[in-house]
């Protein structure tokens, strides 16, 4: 393999490039990114950068290895990939040029979803990229009378918390009866709703958004029940879609992401990693696509090693996913993959004090550990979930622990 192209100047793209070099790949290595920026860190975009406490430059990821070594990468920034020709083994770029490759890493991530009627009117934002963040921050600095956040998922909830930190009035709209209910269950989701209300957020659940009104700038959000909420700024936080548009017609299997085998291989000489990759995780017996920061790093490196394994069998990628979310003075962390219908039980602390550890179980196994301001125990359970911790064993040992 003489040349490898990484599409996506993202966390996953950068970590795959780093791993390729660490594993000894000495050929030409090109990283293509549609944004003008070198890779940067996204978690601060909804928190410190949006709050104005961090200069945007602090999000820059060292564009080298952890030891500071030069990875000898060729950067093609501000260059959107628009097509993939598998027969010719070339990536087409928006400017009409194309890049030949022997090996390809797909790490194009995901794009924020808009709602119908939300695009094209000033004051309505999504938050995914650094430029999104700076545009929203400019609007927040202008002192809006009310910010309406549509969607109480993690991004929306973090934005709401950051806006309250700026002293702004915030309405948080959620179509589900309980925020995060599908991911964390209704009991934990209710804790989140209560926490935001305690911090002065106007939380409205079970409400659909029917439209946006105003002139050149947004002025109001119209709700499904016919009522309206005044809004100088709107933030849409209704999730993301994997960025696979450029792969249409390439022959790769696309189904809510680039479909890979258990080793992250999408086709001979083509791997995918990060938010864009969907693969069967043998540890959970489940096909998953994981949008977490930590997974971008881990899967980026795994996909790189898989690519270099060539015609070899590779090894399955079987992480226990983990992520965190900071809102106000609370840190949520979650290891595993809880789903609707799982058993949930609080094993330390209590929901009322908002400092607790909860376990999620399915088919006799522990499949998730969630902590609010309990980061260390969550991480210990992460390793034990990887070891196949049985639900009964977990509960028994907790009973035996004084």
């Amino acid at each position: 393999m003489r040349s490898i192209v990484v599409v996506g100047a993202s966390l996953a793209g950068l970590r795959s490039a780093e791993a390729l070099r660490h594993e000894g790949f000495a050929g030409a290595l090109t990283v293509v990114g549609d944004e003008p920026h070198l890779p940067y860190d996204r978690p601060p975009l909804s928190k410190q950068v949006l709050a104005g406490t961090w200069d945007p430059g602090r999000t820059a990821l060292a564009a080298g290895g952890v030891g500071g070594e030069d990875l000898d990468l060729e950067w093609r920034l501000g260059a959107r990939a628009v097509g993939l020709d598998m027969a010719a083994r070339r990536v087409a770029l928006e400017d009409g040029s194309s890049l030949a490759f022997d090996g390809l890493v797909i790490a194009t991530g995901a794009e924020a979803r808009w709602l119908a009627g939300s695009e094209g009117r000033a004051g309505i934002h999504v938050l995914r990229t650094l430029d999104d963040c700076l545009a929203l921050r400019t609007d927040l600095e202008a002192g809006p009378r009310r910010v309406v956040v549509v969607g109480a998922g993690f991004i929306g909830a973090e934005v709401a918390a950051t806006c309250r930190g700026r002293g702004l009035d915030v309405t948080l709209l959620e179509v589900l009866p309980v925020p995060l209910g599908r991911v964390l269950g209704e009991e934990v989701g209710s804790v989140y709703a209560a926490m935001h209300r305690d911090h002065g957020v106007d939380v409205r659940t079970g409400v659909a958004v029917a439209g946006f009104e105003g002139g050149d700038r947004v002025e109001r959000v119209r709700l499904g029940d016919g009522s309206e909420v005044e809004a100088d700024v709107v933030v849409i936080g209704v999730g993301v879609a994997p960025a696979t548009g450029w792969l249409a017609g390439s022959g790769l299997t696309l189904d809510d992401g680039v479909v890979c085998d258990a080793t992250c291989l999408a086709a001979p000489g083509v791997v995918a990693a990060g938010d864009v990759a969907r693969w069967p995780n043998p540890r959970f017996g489940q096909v998953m696509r994981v949008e977490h920061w930590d997974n971008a790093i881990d899967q980026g490196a795994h996909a790189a090693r898989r690519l270099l394994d060539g015609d070899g069998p590779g090894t399955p990628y079987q992480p226990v996913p983990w992520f965190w979310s900071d809102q106000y003075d609370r840190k949520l962390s979650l290891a595993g993959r809880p789903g609707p219908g799982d058993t949930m039980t609080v094993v330390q602390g209590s929901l009322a004090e908002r400092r607790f550890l909860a376990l999620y179980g399915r088919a006799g196994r522990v499949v998730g550990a969630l902590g609010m301001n309990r980061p260390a125990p969550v991480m210990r359970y992460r390793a034990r979930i990887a070891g196949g911790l049985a639900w009964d064993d977990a509960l028994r040992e907790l009973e035996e622990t004084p």
Partner: protein
Amino acid sequence: MRIVVDFDLCESNAVCMDIAPEVFEVRDDDFLYILDDRPPDELRPKVEEAVRRCPKQAISIAED
């Protein structure tokens, strides 16, 4: 190899403990403790992985 943690940045996410428990421990008080600030060189790959995967980018390696 000497471990340097910026404790102003550290938020005790405990990722480092998961990767290199020989070096890092987050205790029940939610603070990170460095168990060995000059770990043996065979732990370097683990320590580098901890540096890479720290959500706050709070860990670095000094070569003094």
